[in-house]
């Protein structure tokens, strides 16, 4: 049986090996993704992001447990976890330590945890994260928790990938929440103040609330969309029904406190996405941006085949001599291609 068939049949070793192929972007991994694509689109993708030390891994651990034993008495969900930690920019090595906080999940065949190094990506995810999530989706994991690299202010890629994005904050991480200024606060569908048993939790929550209120509800909804518009160039005003006010929740992940409420809010957000048409909208935006990226890569490599290295280097020479600007260089190169073709 080949890898794809084994993965669809639920073989965990095959899944682990395929994830490696996909992470390393091998030809086998790419072919498998083509075959698996028809089986995707069923999972609820939940992003978990926030500054280092806010307790993302502990929260993922507890959240996975809740999905394994839903408090509303529902069927246990199969849970996939993808946890990303940074690669060293100097050696390319990495220490992936998120499993340390996820030991409660060991021995449960309904859970599959995979650690990833960021391998030079800067947006809080790794280049292959979306593809890895696709494989887990096809393998039948109904909930996929994606834990980003400890994020500061600009690591907002997760909002493009996930259906529901949780931004985790903790008391005592700086006055007026330095850690979450513009970017990361805007992508939150749900704000979680973790370590809520610590002093200062009221201040943290109050700051978050006032920041949310600074933006008028309607504008806040638009802010979220403006981000997406910039990313994929789809300029469409959000309809009234698609405005979601991010709730602020308190949790103590190490003790499991607040998890039932968090589970409830995630479910409510999912219903909102489905009921407002946002689910399809986000799906379209996400797939369009993915398509655009692939298209760019493909167009550039196809173009490179048509233009000679000599012509290309000649233009680079003129750039170095300041004969032409980079923008002119592009125009020249695209012209060169057209001439060579005709």
């Amino acid at each position, binding site marked *: 049986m080949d890898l794809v068939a084994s993965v669809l049949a639920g073989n*965990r070793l095959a899944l682990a090996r395929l994830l490696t192929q996909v992470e390393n972007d*091998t030809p086998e991994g790419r072919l498998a993704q083509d075959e698996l694509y028809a089986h995707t689109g069923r999972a609820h993708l939940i992003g978990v992001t926030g500054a280092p030390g806010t307790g993302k891994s502990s929260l993922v651990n507890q959240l996975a447990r809740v999905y394994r034993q839903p408090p509303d008495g529902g069927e246990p969900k199969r849970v996939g976890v993808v946890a990303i930690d940074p690669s*060293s920019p100097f050696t390319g*090595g990495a220490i992936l330590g998120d*499993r340390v906080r996820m030991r409660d999940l*060991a021995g449960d065949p309904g859970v599959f945890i995979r650690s990833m190094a960021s*391998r030079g990506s800067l947006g809080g995810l790794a280049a292959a994260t979306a593809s890895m999530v696709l494989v887990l989706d096809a393998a039948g994991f109904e909930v996929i928790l994606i834990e980003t690299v400890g994020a500061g202010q600009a690591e907002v890629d997760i909002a493009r990938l996930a259906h529901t994005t949780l931004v985790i904050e903790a008391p005592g991480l700086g006055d007026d929440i330095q850690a979450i200024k513009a970017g990361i606060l805007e992508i939150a569908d749900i704000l979680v103040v973790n370590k809520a048993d610590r002093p200062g939790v009221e201040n943290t929550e109050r700051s978050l609330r006032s920041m949310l209120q600074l933006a008028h509800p309607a504008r806040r909804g638009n802010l979220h969309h403006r981000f997406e518009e910039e990313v994929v160039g789809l300029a469409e005003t959000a309809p009234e029904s698609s405005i979601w006010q991010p709730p602020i929740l308190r949790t103590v992940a190490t003790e499991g406190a607040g998890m039932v409420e968090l589970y409830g809010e995630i479910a409510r957000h999912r219903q909102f996405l489905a009921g407002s048409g946002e689910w399809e909208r986000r799906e379209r935006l996400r797939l369009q941006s993915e398509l655009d990226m692939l298209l760019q890569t493909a167009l550039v490599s196809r173009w490179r085949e048509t233009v000679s290295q000599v012509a290309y280097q000649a233009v680079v020479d003129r750039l170095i001599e300041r004969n032409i600007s980079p923008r002119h260089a592009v125009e020249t190169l695209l012209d060169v291609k057209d001439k060579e073709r005709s």
Partner: protein
Amino acid sequence: MTDRKIRVLVAKPGLDGHDRGAKVVARALRDAGMEVIYTGLRQTPEMIAEAALQEDVDAVGLSILSGAHMALVPRVLELLKANGQAHVRVFVGGIIPDEDVPRLVEIGVVGVYGPGTVTEDIIKDIRRAIASAAPA
């Protein structure tokens, strides 16, 4: 194929609570460009084998100071094999009496490293062991 990263699981089976050695080794492997999955203290052999499977690692490093190595190490090797991961190379660090080393090597451990080991030696051994291990 693009840059194939070596992935290593570093785990501490058993009940002793000293993970300094394991962390030193983890950092050395990271500095050698490897991706190290660190699982923390008090792992059972079952937990280690399961993590090795999910993470599709090339090697597993076990740090044992409790004296229980002759029970824990064979169990981990057995479980790796049972999971279809016979190609995963296993190395052991910690306090291992000299007389136990031949037996560990005999059952398939690629290296045993006590206090004072130069981390470069571990890195070299892991690279060599992985190069010679064809994934099944």
